[in-house]
């Protein structure tokens, strides 16, 4: 039917409709509470030692904007590709989505974003145009010279942030290559050498000089050489002895990891050959078991490395499996690859035997929790045993190679969240494993960042200003700090209040299963030093980033505008504004905001 034909019928159509515009009715004057947009803080970013703006990272990743997402991570953490592999991701434990279905795979996404951005040519150094320079930038040169002892995660981080703040930075590294624990203590299958090398190179791109083969300690005349400060980031590279008779028979686990890394670097073939030889010899004989003493990540790394060399490692730990400081996932993988675990056994003595080493063990029992919350263990009287092994590796902890205790306790020292600052004509900052409670890569990076910010405040405003200035950069309750907040970026407009699952309108988030990266079958993984996880592909990453609820931060979903009964929400220049002339304070927008990025407040009514 044509329009004319349709209109030819005379249809009465009388209903009530105002003749004047309802704009005359300023419903805004009904209001006694007013909504406003207020981005707050997501629990994941508070839990991240580096204070990474995770909701923003995932929002960008969900739009396929990998370079922007990568730069957002780089703002707070110079080593995303590294952390995307080795971080123990406390963010995932804090993730609000975990209360709805399952946490976001933040860690695997971090790795994907870093790789996708680098593959996409988003620049290799964070200081290049397009590589983060606009957002991150290098501060104006301050003329201050800072030395960093050690090029592990804490040292690299401190140097990177110091350089970004305009200070001249030199790293002194005793080994022939940079990376510290990342280079020598973490096996190739967890962190491939080239991944680390790329990120180290990017930091050098900021003008940081890394002087390998030039180990230093505080006896070096830094002050005379014109340095204003020294960041001590030497880590703990010397393994602790077992402290039992025959301890000299045990090999140092860290040394073993270092040697293996050196071999895998050389060719990768040498190691493979040794593994093949072991296999062709009919596998390891039952008494060819090797013992690894310890329950931390190093013990796991040693054991999994031994598996790859054709050995049959047995981890001997004095407490229970659930008490192990090693990451649960690492323990699970080790066991899946064939590592055995002997719980509640402590070494009593080591003795050479015709067939190998006789390891005498004392059975332990788990007792009451101690003041630190961990259960104490005590010996079960008379219950000892012997174990015949071909070798023993000690991985029970480490200490710094040079003693810094006295220097750290100097008068006027400030204890910060993850570092310690000693002001003076030559300021000292102690970082990394020397000062962090949790000895993790991410904590070390956070510690280096904290030291850099502390030194910057010290140089510019003096020692008295340090604590207050750092407190203002805390994410949520801290101790994680944000560089973006320090620089007064967009993120500093956010409220520090952490938004929890109860603050969200979860009706907008249909349940969706967590995407986890594929893992190589343990039998395959155990036969090679190649990286066991291929990581996300683009489609998986997009799907997983899309699950992020973007807690506490507006992601332009436009629910507020859609639901406003007064059409009072206006979108201008990409931002949203509430027209106070018509907002009657009903609160529908706040209620329908899925992510808790709006608040109602009475104070807003004062006009």
């Amino acid at each position, binding site marked *: 039917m044509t*329009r004319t034909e*349709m209109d030819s019928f005379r*249809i009465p*159509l009388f*209903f009530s409709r105002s003749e*004047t*515009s309802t704009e005359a009715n300023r419903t805004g004057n009904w209001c006694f509470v007013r909504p406003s947009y207020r981005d707050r803080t997501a629990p994941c970013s508070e839990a991240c030692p580096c204070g990474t703006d995770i909701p923003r990272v995932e929002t960008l990743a969900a739009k396929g904007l990998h370079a922007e997402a990568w730069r957002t991570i780089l703002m707070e953490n110079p080593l995303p590709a590294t952390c995307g592999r080795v971080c123990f991701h406390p963010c995932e434990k804090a993730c609000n989505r975990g209360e709805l279905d399952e946490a976001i795979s933040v860690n695997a996404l971090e790795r994907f974003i870093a790789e996708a951005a680098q593959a996409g040519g988003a620049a290799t150094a964070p200081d290049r145009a397009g590589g983060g320079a606009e957002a991150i930038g290098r501060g104006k040169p301050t003329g201050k010279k800072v030395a960093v002892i050690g090029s592990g995660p804490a040292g690299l981080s401190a140097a990177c942030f110091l350089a970004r703040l305009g200070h001249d930075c030199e790293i002194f590294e005793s080994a022939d290559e940079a990376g510290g624990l990342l280079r020598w203590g973490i096996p190739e299958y967890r962190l491939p050498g080239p991944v680390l090398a790329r990120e180290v190179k990017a930091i050098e791109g900021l003008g940081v000089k890394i002087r390998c083969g030039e180990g230093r300690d505080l006896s070096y005349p830094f002050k005379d050489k014109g340095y204003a400060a020294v960041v001590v980031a030497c880590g703990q590279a010397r393994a602790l002895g077992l402290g039992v008779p025959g301890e000299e028979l045990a090999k140092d686990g860290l040394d073993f990891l270092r040697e293996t890394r050196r071999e895998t670097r050389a060719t990768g073939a040498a190691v493979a050959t040794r593994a093949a030889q072991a296999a062709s010899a009919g596998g390891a004989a039952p008494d060819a078991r090797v013992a690894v003493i310890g329950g931390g990540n190093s013990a796991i790394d040693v054991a999994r490395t031994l598996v790859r060399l054709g050995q049959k490692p047995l981890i001997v730990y004095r407490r229970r499996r659930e008490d192990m400081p090693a990451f649960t996932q690492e323990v699970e993988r080790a066991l899946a690859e064939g590592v055995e675990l002997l719980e509640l056994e402590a070494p009593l003595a080591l003795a050479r035997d015709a067939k190998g080493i006789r390891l005498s063990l004392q059975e332990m029992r788990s007792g009451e929790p101690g003041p630190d919350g961990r259960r104490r263990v005590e010996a079960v009287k008379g219950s000892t045993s012997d174990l015949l092994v071909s070798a023993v590796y000690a991985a029970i902890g480490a200490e710094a190679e040079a003693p810094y205790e006295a220097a750290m306790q100097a008068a006027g020292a400030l204890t910060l969240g993850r570092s310690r600052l000693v002001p003076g004509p030559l300021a000292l900052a102690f970082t990394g494993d020397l000062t962090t409670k949790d000895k993790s890569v991410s904590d070390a990076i956070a510690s280096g960042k904290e030291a850099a910010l502390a030194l910057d405040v010290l140089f510019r405003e003096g020692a008295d200003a340090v604590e207050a200035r750092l407190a203002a950069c805390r994410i949520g309750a801290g101790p994680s700090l944000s560089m973006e907040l320090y620089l007064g970026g967009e993120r500093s407009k956010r409220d520090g209040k952490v938004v929890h699952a109860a603050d969200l309108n979860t009706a907008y988030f249909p349940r969706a299963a967590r995407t986890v990266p594929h893992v190589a079958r343990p039998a395959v993984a155990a036969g090679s030093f190649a990286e066991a996880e291929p990581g996300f592909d683009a489609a998986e990453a997009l799907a997983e980033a899309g699950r992020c609820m973007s807690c506490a931060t507006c992601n332009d979903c436009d629910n507020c505008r859609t639901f406003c009964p007064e*059409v009072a929400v206006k979108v201008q220049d990409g931002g949203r504004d509430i027209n106070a002339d018509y907002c009657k304070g009903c609160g529908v927008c706040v209620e329908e905001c899925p992510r808790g990025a709006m608040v109602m407040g009475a104070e807003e009514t004062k006009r």
Partner: protein
Amino acid sequence: MKKVLEGSQAVAHAVQLARTKVISAYPITPQTHIVEELAKFCADGTLDGQFICVESEHSAMASVIGASSGGVRTFTASSSHGLALMHEMLHWASGARLPIVMAEVNRALGPGWNLWMDQTDSLAQRDTGWIQLYCEDGQEALDTTLEAFLLAEIVNLPVMVVLDAFFLSHTYEPVDLPEQEEVDRFLPPFSPKFRLDTEHPCGMHEMSQPPVYMEMRKSIQAAMETVPEVLAKVDADFASIFGRHYGPVEAVDCDDADVILVMAGTTASTCRELVRELRAKGEKVGLLKLRMFRPFPVAAIRESLAKAKKVAVVDRNNSAGAGGIFAQEIRSALCNCGKRPEVYSYVAGLGGRDITTKTLEGIYRMTLEAAEPGLESRWVEIDEELALS
């Protein structure tokens, strides 16, 4: 193109071909297949429309009222308890003069929890100001849905397309699925006579006091009165493109009939069979199929029934205390005619009970043999002992 489709799918295809922009519905058996199919079309992009999920039928109707007020073509579907829950919003849709189309699948109301065929749910909404069209088969369901959009948009009143539960909603039949180009020729894009406009805000449907309210109601009544004429044109246009014609009622062998059976929905198909058989034996019997119930096509009914001696109305519904609803309406339609047939009222086939040719023949015989209609509706094929226990 002929396709074997379920009645529900036939409706869904019509909604898709009508390029409907907003669909909102809440699932309820036996209507669910319609909106499931439409949700699929929206999801796979074969329908460029928005499917709004809601938490109740009341909200479904509220959503399409909002969307229709915004000036787009809308559709919803419901049944039984769901329709009952929409009741308040049904009045709003017609009072606001919105051309919403709804598929309503006739299902019994509980308790006596029952999913099956019964007309009481839609007939209980007869005073809400909706046009009601009842369908006999899958083809008619598809065609009526397409016609409903055009009719609604011309007269600015909502239309309910009514289908029998299961007998029609869940039965597969060969259906001629029209081409998009033909449908576009029949049904132009929706061009609203008024709509909400945030650039020029005004108050709609605000407080209406005694000096104007009655005029608004009269406006609805007057619009309803144009429907027979508009439907005639819509039917004619439809026939010219698709070759099928329906009308507000269909009279089968009524001209010389002594007894005419009157009914709506799929029962009409059963009755066609009976009329053929009885006519072959020389009995003077006819069928009047009611397609339109609101507005009630009084003129067409009078014209079809006037010459008969007796009319037997078969109601698959009951207004407790007053009997079959179609029968009441037929009686009042004939009441003021000079010469009029006796009207016999029968209640049959409630809550999904079958009505067979045997049932209808029984009704025919009873009517033929009765001396007078009596005051009450007669309930057929009923277990009196159980009912009155």
